[in-house]
């Protein structure tokens, strides 16, 4: 019996064909991976499989029965639960209520008992190791917490078929491991998963079957064991694999670009000293609560540090001022692209050139032609999948949106590039593109700070600092092994640097 079978699915959005006659079959009890590059149509398929959208043509059956009517949400929920790529948390409600949205009356009675709801929510959260107070307003959650709440909610339905659309993109390693344990035990209990991720090692870790989409078409479905990683990447990109070609940057110069001294911010971090030289790529790793993102935000002016200084190219930056940082030669990719990365409703061209509008014309005038030139170059450099610089960023797939954010950071040819989780939600090929861009920037003389717990992001770094509970707990020169890094990230390992 198949948990779900979709055949001949086609879906268009205006001129874009998001799915072109694709099919997928997920067998009962398996964990099935769906992979493909950004914009391949994965999330679109998910919206069909969960009844949010109707395919233009095609047929979906669950365990042999035709899919319910689109309006019958209750029926859909009994068939499939889902963690969507786009947040479905309601920011104005508490975490507890979000967990039990539209089923707050836990006992089935007409009246909601809030104390019971809170208790049950607390239990559920601790069961999944989510350290969040159920009474918090969801708007106050961090990206990671929000993701964990979504996962806990989806798993709590007791559905036999669960779809996870890039659940791990914003989780740190221990959280991912907890999620996988959870998934394994649920699978043992007979639950079927459709799992979407751009982290291919995760596919090999927990999935039995994999389906690859490329350019809105179905390419292959195969047992994971029968595919090598290279074959998988080839199926996704349509090209023979040439990935991982090591970088050959020129030697690092001596003059330091970034100098951070005694930087401290509340309970997030304290006493941070750091310097990055011209052409050097430095990674900062750490778990979600290590303070690494806050450090990055303090450096680029998104937060105002309580103490300490940040200097770029010898000039001290005004604390808490992004314009000062940009003027001082900083370019950056913020952690949450939806919140701080781009302005929906505006074009790719405009979004990617905000920091350099001064250069696009005189007296504040912006030459549309120059802007289009710059944007087209960036679209080509970063391989952004779009119809052109005038397309609205809001219409791009998640990974392509991330590339626009990167383009914005690179636009000003910054002396210092600060990247926070730069490859979240980006497909393998695009990840290579982004990391190549980082490489090129470093080769061109920029100092780069990569803040991430994605080991792939950190691999090209000349050295990696690990933060733990607000301080630097270790430093590793290039050539570290995954194990030693991860153990320090989790606060159990020896630091080699100190």
């Amino acid at each position, binding site marked *: 019996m198949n948990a779900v079978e979709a055949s001949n699915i086609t879906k268009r959005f205006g001129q874009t064909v998001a799915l072109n006659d694709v099919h997928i079959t997920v067998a009962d009890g398996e964990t099935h991976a769906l992979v493909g590059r950004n914009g391949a149509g994965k999330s679109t398929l998910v919206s069909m499989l969960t009844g949010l959208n109707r395919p233009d043509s095609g047929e979906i059956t669950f365990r042999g029965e035709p899919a319910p009517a689109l309006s019958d*949400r209750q029926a859909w929920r009994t068939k499939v639960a889902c963690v969507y790529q786009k947040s479905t948390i*309601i920011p104005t409600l508490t975490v507890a209520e979000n967990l039990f949205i*539209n089923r707050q*009356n836990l006992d089935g009675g007409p009246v909601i008992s809030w104390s019971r709801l809170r208790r049950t929510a607390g239990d559920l959260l601790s069961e999944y190791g989510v350290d969040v*107070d159920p009474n918090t307003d969801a708007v106050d959650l*961090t990206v990671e*917490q929000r993701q964990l709440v979504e996962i806990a909610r989806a798993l709590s339905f007791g559905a036999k078929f669960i779809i996870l659309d890039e659940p791990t993109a914003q989780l740190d390693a221990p959280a991912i491991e907890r999620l996988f344990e959870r998934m394994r035990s649920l699978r043992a209990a007979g639950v079927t998963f459709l799992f979407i991720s751009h982290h291919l090692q995760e596919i090999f870790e927990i999935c039995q079957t994999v389906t690859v989409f490329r350019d809105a078409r179905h390419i292959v479905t195969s047992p994971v064991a029968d595919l090598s990683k290279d074959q998988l990447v080839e199926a996704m990109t349509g090209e023979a694999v040439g990935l991982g070609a090591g970088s050959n940057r020129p030697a690092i110069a001596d003059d330091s670009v970034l100098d951070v001294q005694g930087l401290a911010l509340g309970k*997030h971090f304290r006493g941070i000293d750091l310097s990055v030289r011209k052409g050097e790529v430095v990674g900062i790793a750490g778990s979600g609560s290590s303070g690494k993102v806050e450090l990055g935000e303090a450096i680029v002016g998104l937060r105002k540090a309580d103490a300490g200084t940040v200097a770029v190219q010898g000039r001290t930056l005004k604390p808490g001022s992004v314009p000062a940082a940009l003027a001082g030669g900083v370019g950056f990719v913020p952690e949450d692209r939806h919140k701080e990365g781009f302005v929906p409703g505006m074009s790719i061209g405009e979004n990617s050139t905000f920091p350099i509008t001064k250069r696009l014309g005189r007296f504040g005038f912006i030459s549309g032609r120059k802007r289009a030139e710059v944007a087209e170059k960036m679209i080509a450099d970063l391989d952004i999948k779009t119809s052109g610089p005038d397309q609205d960023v809001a219409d791009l797939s998640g990974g392509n949106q991330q590339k626009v954010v990167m383009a914005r950071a690179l636009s000003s040819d910054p002396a210092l590039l600060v990247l926070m989780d730069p490859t979240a939600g980006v497909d393998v090929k695009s990840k290579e593109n982004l990391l190549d861009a980082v490489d090129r920037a470093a080769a061109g003389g920029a100092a780069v700070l990569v803040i991430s717990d994605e080991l792939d992001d950190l691999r090209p770094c000349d050295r990696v600092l690990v933060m733990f509970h607000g301080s630097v707990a270790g430093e590793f020169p290039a050539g570290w092994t995954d194990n030693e890094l991860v153990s320090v990230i989790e606060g159990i390992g020896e630091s080699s640097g100190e």
Partner: protein
Amino acid sequence: MSDVSTPVAAAARPRLQVARLRDLALLPAIVVLLIVGFIASPIFLTTGNLLDVVQQQSELGLVVLGEALVLIIGKMDLSLESTLGFAPALAMVLVLPTADHGLGLGLPEWTALPVCLLAGVLVGAINAFLVLRLQLSGFIITLGMLITVRGVQQGLTVGQSLSASVPSLAYLGNATWFGLHASIWIFLVVFAVAIVFVGYFRHGRSLYAIGGNEAAAKAAGIRTTRVAVVVIILASVLAALAGAMMYGRLGSVSASQGNGWIFDAFAAAVLGGVSLNGGKGTLFGALCGVLCLGLVLNILTLAHANPYWFLAIRGAIILGALVLARLTTGKAQD
């Protein structure tokens, strides 16, 4: 973006209280008003006067309740102020003879109240159709409806006040139940029911979900369109009911009944913490907002504020209450 290290579950009690503070943001302002009122006039703190205030606010209260519900689902309805006059006026022209400025259709007198409420359903349904089905901007559509509905009333009544007696329509506005005006009972009971409904019932909570994130609410299985239709119609019906009560209290329906009320309705709701962006604020807050506005007016009247500076003082007090609420709760508003 905030702290990663959120306090753990043990801190639940105090946290809850902070979250609730916003609903109570107006209480300090109300206390200040009560003190000022007491200083301004010995009459102020008498039961009689305070009941007068509640009665005077009862019709606005129902409109505010309707508006607050619509705001919570993330829409808005400006046309409520016109419905307040249109609904009872339509009911009256249908039952009244031409001599009393009616249309002389000879509908039986008892139909007046049902027709009045149906008029509310009608206006609400048109709003819902245009806003939800055609997906037009709620602001501009209901502004257009505000003008149109008032215009239709003016056209139907040829600009006349309708002051003939229609007892069935007037009943709710001038009856006395258990020693209190019926309008006071209706106002408070309807509010209490609504507070409990949106606080403790699944369907009530779905209003917040829709206003907070409509796509997410839909994904959670809430029939967002259906709920929105019901809320928009309900708000119109509440305004129609308020219109009938107003007719009962004042004895006539003028062609400008409700003129300018939408400002007060929004002011009361937003003062009480309901957000124009949807998903936020409580009906208890809205209730406080209504009472607050009523007290301000009552105090200014009792204190015989200079008529020429009356408006300025009133505006300044509203601004002051907002700043006070902001400073006491420390929460930003929207």
